[in-house]
């Protein structure tokens, strides 16, 4: 198997490309049929693995935390949470930013890497996009429920009403509504358009009449003609071009929720790029968290190879370094600003009553990943990467915790200093959203092709045009 054998011995390891010495993006020996079977059979199988039912059940049980938590929240009010004055933002906002951040890697993989013509994205793009959408679902819950009167949340939408009242378009929280709803819409459209050719394949391979109908309707009569493909590729590129600024602006808007405020620790101009880098960082960590078990359980090592894990780890290293730079700049500017408040904010962050949060953040986000990810040996160590991805996700949660809580609970007026202690309802809803995510993701894995077959087929050696060769006109050209 891929993980075994000496690392750089092409003679021993068939996964290593003998020409470049790199790990192959797709294991050798595959053809159109074999990759199609590999992926389509996961969905079209008659024997759903027991583990799937088990996972769905566990996820569903945990997701009950959201249902119960939100029901109680709506009945009793936001006072069941640990939010108080001055710390009026707590878990809800932390988790919102955390989930939205996780979603961003999916769009990065599907859009930005497409613009850069990184073909290795093809194997991971579909489930990364699914991750985006489900993360946005989890994230989108929080802005709706953390308001005291959630049944009036539609007032955030600009619609002609009998009050002649419109949203305040100068509030970043109103921009959040537009950013997140646009992000969710575009992500779903991009995801769906990408799946249309695969739905065609599923329709043609399905045996059960119901499956034929279902995938037939979803594939919208896709026949795979040249016209279809030209338009499909154009639409994909356009959507990628649109999603790229979108993904950067969405998390920028979310960073504005803080940066626009005048609070020491929030009012920082570095937030937009630093939040986006953090989003990609945590997002890639989540992709790894999902990819590593997926390739193991569904035997996808041939298409999600060590090359992918290595590349993702490199992106994490890059974005993690940007995040590290962000932390360093925050510390530096707190000193350089000569502002008493900034200085105190940073001192309090490090050595105040919640200093442990800051050092957890430094440990899990900076110390562990940024020292280890330089090593290629560790980057292709599946177990290590999996554990690291969990560590980084924890770290990125702590980043938002530190930003939200430690800036709020001790600010300008010492008479309004307080503390923040999350209640069981905070934890229940947060953990519940993980269950919700799990349920959605398990359904995705079971019913939709989790790896784009059409894009994998284009990467196979037999699609490559041999320039000037006699068979140049007969092979399928790679159009991406």
């Amino acid at each position, binding site marked *: 198997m891929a993980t075994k054998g000496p690392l750089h011995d092409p003679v021993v390891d068939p996964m290593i490309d003998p020409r470049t010495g790199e790990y192959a993006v797709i294991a050798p020996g595959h053809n159109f049929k074999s990759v199609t079977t590999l992926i389509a059979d996961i969905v079209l199988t008659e024997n759903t693995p027991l583990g799937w039912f088990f996972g769905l059940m566990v996820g569903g049980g945990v997701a009950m935390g959201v249902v119960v938590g939100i029901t109680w929240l709506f009945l009793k009010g936001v006072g069941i949470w640990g939010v108080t004055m001055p710390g009026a933002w707590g878990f809800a906002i932390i988790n919102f930013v955390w989930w939205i951040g996780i979603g961003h890697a999916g769009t990065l993989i599907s859009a930005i890497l497409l613009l850069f013509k990184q073909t290795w994205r093809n194997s991971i793009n579909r489930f990364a996009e699914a991750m985006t959408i489900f993360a946005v679902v989890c994230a989108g819950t929080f802005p709706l429920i953390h308001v005291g009167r959630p049944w009036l949340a539609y007032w955030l939408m600009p619609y*002609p*009403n*009998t*009050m*002649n*009242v419109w949203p305040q378009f100068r509030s970043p929280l109103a921009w959040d509504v537009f950013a997140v709803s646009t992000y969710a819409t575009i992500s779903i459209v991009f995801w769906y358009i990408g799946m249309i050719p695969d739905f065609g394949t599923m*329709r043609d391979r399905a045996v059960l009449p119901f499956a*034929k*109908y279902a995938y*037939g309707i979803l594939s919208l*009569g896709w026949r795979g003609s040249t016209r279809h493909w030209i338009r499909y590729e154009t639409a994909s590129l356009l959507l990628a071009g649109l999603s790229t600024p979108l993904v950067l602006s969405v998390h920028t808007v979310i960073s504005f929720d803080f940066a626009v405020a005048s609070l020491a620790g929030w009012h920082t101009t570095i937030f937009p790029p630093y939040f986006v880098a953090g989003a990609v960082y945590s997002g890639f960590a989540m992709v790894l968290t999902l990819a590593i078990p997926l390739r193991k359980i569904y035997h996808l090592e041939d298409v999600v190879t060590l090359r992918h894990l290595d590349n993702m780890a490199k992106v994490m290293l890059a974005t993690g370094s940007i995040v590290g730079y962000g932390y360093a700049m925050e510390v530096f500017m707190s000193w350089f600003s000569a502002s008493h408040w900034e200085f105190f904010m940073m001192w309090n962050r490090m050595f105040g009553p919640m200093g442990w949060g800051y050092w957890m953040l430094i440990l899990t986000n900076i110390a562990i990943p940024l020292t280890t990810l330089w090593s290629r040996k560790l980057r292709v160590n599946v177990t290590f990467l999996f554990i690291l991805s969990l560590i980084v996700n924890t770290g990125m949660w702590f980043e938002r915790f530190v930003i939200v809580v430690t800036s709020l609970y001790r600010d300008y007026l010492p008479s309004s200093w307080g503390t923040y202690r999350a209640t069981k309802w905070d934890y229940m809803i947060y953990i519940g959203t993980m269950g919700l995510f799990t349920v959605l993701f398990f359904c995705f894995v079971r019913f939709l092709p989790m790896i784009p077959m059409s894009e994998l087929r284009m990467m196979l050696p037999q699609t490559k045009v041999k320039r000037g060769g006699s068979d140049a006109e007969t092979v399928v050209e790679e159009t991406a």
Partner: protein
Amino acid sequence: MAQVFDRSSNALARMSLVLTGLIVIALGVGLDQLQRSPWVTRQGQRPDQPVPFSHKHHVEGLGLQCQYCHTSVEKSSYAGIPPTKTCINCHAQIWTNAALLEPVRHSWATGESINWIKVHDLPDYVYFNHEIHVNKGIGCASCHGRVDEMPLMYMQNTLQMEWCLNCHRNPGVNLRPTSEIYNMAWAGPSEEKPVACTSTGKGGPTAQSVSCKVVDKGGPLNVSLETTGGMTQTFTSQADLGRFLTQQYHIRSANELSSCEVCHR
């Protein structure tokens, strides 16, 4: 392999596209209409009052002026519903045996209030002030409709915020001389019935600083106005009169009048 979908699916697919669009549009239009419909606003609905009091009979028929019963309308934020005493002023002698009036007599005998049902019921986060409107030249009929023609009370207007704001942003269209406030039939100046106004010089922020008279074309042209030598202007359109009165009454700008604290304290 057999076809999964037969030819009729083509029509279904096209129809579903069109229908989706139509349904979305219909939903939008429907909701927009619904929020302004009488079903939501309760316009024109006549609730069952304990006594079927007829404004038509008392105002149109008997010629009572509004303030006879709603005494505090010029002095208080609340116009007031008359107490049983006001009814008894007359009904101690008139229709003393009418079954309709039994709740009134009962109230008078026991001291229990009559449970009138509020037709114009604003939410309690709206601090409506009657006094300011009456004193700044808004007649009863502008908001409450032709109450003198209502056998049973109902709401003429929506009382929705957009309705309030429409006037606060452009009060001129509804302004009238303070002498015409309780005139339910006031129709605004016209070529046939111009309005002559002049400043009385009494100043102050209330409407008492201007004196107006309706001029009937057939009547005398020299109207007697209470003046201190100001120029008498004659208006033949509501637009001109509104502009003049806005200025004379010192009515604040649309910006100030649509600021939240005007109504929501």
